[in-house]
């Protein structure tokens, strides 16, 4: 699976791991990782350790996730970003919406 999801032991935090190219091809899998959960956790970690590339549709998917997890009230961390991925997030100033590390 190119998109894996995992719950923390207390089930309050969802971790979504994306592997390979994070682009429009992952759209359905990425949405499936959180959309079917009820209730949706407010706290989500997107782990990009094994993501090699990220395009603007991936940024769109992050916005969808944020919207689904409560928009302003959501707490979304994007972790293990490579320097290339961080550059893309920085140009779009997505650090203003997501906790990027």
């Amino acid at each position, binding site marked *: 699976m190119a998109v894996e999801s995992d719950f923390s032991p207390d089930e309050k935090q969802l971790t979504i791991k994306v592997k390979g190219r994070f682009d429009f091809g992952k759209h359905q899998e990425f949405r499936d990782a959180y959309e079917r959960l009820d209730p949706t956790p407010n706290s989500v970690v997107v782990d990009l350790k094994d993501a090699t590339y990220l395009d603007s549709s991936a940024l*769109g998917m992050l916005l969808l996730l944020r919207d689904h997890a409560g928009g302003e009230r959501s707490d979304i961390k994007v972790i293990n970003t490579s320097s290339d991925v961080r550059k893309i997030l920085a140009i779009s100033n997505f650090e*203003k919406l997501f906790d990027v590390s």
Partner: protein
Amino acid sequence: MPAEQGLRVLIAEDGAADRLLLAQIVRRQGHEVVTAENGEQAVALFAEERPDLVLLDALMPVMDGFEAARRIKAMAGEALVPIIFLTSMNEEQGLVRCLEAGGDDFMAKPYSAVILAAKIGAMDRLRRLQATVLEQRDELARHHHHLLNEQRVAKAVFDKVAHSGCLRSSNIRYLQSPYALFNGDLLLAAFTPSGDMHVLLGDFTGHGLPAAVGAMPLAEVFYGMTAKGYGLVETLREMNAKLKRILPVDMFCCALLLNLSFERGTVEVWNGGMPDGYRLSAAGEVLSVLQSRHLPLGILAPEQFDDRTDILPLTAGERVFLLSDGVVDTGDAKDRLFGVERLREVLAANRDPGQLFDEVMQALERFGGVPRDDISLCDIRMAEPGGLAPVAPVYSDSGRSSPLDWSLSLVLHADSLKRFNPVPYLLQFLQEIHGLRPSSAVLHSVLGELYSNALEHGVLGLDSRLKQDAAGFAEYYRERGRRLTALSEGFVRIALRVEPMAAGGRLTVEISDSGTGFDIEKVLARPASEKGLSGRGLHLVQRLGVRAQWLDQGRRARVEFGW
């Protein structure tokens, strides 16, 4: 496995007994049979009856099976008409010849009904597969053709909208891939009524029609508000609010907006999500980088939107160079990106600005980049004040409603001064007076200047001498922002009076402020050469040949327009 439906099978066999036997076996399996005694007959029957499958004896008189197979395959064209050779040959060479002549399979004599049925079944599956593939290919081709046609029409409509602006202006050079719009790229430029130039380079998320759909409303807001004299900030807020309202959550638009003021020698910049733009000297050195400081348009709710712009000096001959991410993100065969550094090398090596785009494209080619269809380049040169002739707007009303006898007074207090610019509204209103329309550009400049003077020097007490160099310029606007945020009292009053005169009419504008005033004589006496980037406002108003007076120790400015 028997064939799913009865097929029409052509049997060509010179031996009468064998022919009858075969025909019987095949008929029993539910197929329709036509028979031929030699190759020539077989070819003629094929043309006439168009069978689905052919059983062909290899050795026949008149024309043998090999020649017949070649002709039948040629006639069948793209459709698969399976040919099964009937042969008593056992040596390898003979069997190979059957396949080389176009046969799909062979069957050794004596015939086994079971094996023949299985072979016909297998061939039928292949035949159907081929038919399905051809059908789908044709359908894809039709859809593709349809799509291209739709794109052509949409592009033609959009080009009309996009080019209603001033992209053809002599100080703008641009290059866009032909279908960049369908990759979300957008380039717009228009003159404001006071002769400033607004430019937008945008990039919507995604590809195809969805990426192009947002371009229309964005262009409409851009042109509409620019024509009405709204500044970059108001236009940005409206564009963001509109896109936020109409686009789905995962769609947004990266954008870089410029306001080039030729009169003031400044460029105002807002960059949300676009690659770095460059402010270049006349010789092409990078003076500063126009970095993305904001989220793209269409993401934040209006109350969270950050409309802060940077204002930088830009003197005549200096340029701004903008590009879309298709340039820096062009990848080579190994997935390496062209990147910002290679672009900077091209910029550094450039000698003739006219060659810059060619040099960028050549560098992309040398880099071995896979050509992309979302490349936009734009190079805008700062012109001398009054060096460009903006196109006058076309009015469509009759002029009968022209109001010629009225006055109004508007007072803005601290809270309104922070968030509201009344100038576009007042100008909109003044447009109703036909006699004033020919001087509309001057009116915009003068009103805009006097209002910013009253606010910045009067209410906020800023000293325009700060604006001596680029650093001072930045400091001036930072300080302006700080003081405006902290503002708790003060006012700007705008009074307009319109009177009919014997031949036409007269407009009197008075703008006063709560500041401490200034030494009018001293400021106006400063020679142009000494003032550097500062104090342009007053000189500008004077230079435009408007009758201007300063009263109350500089706290009140009065100008008159007659027609």
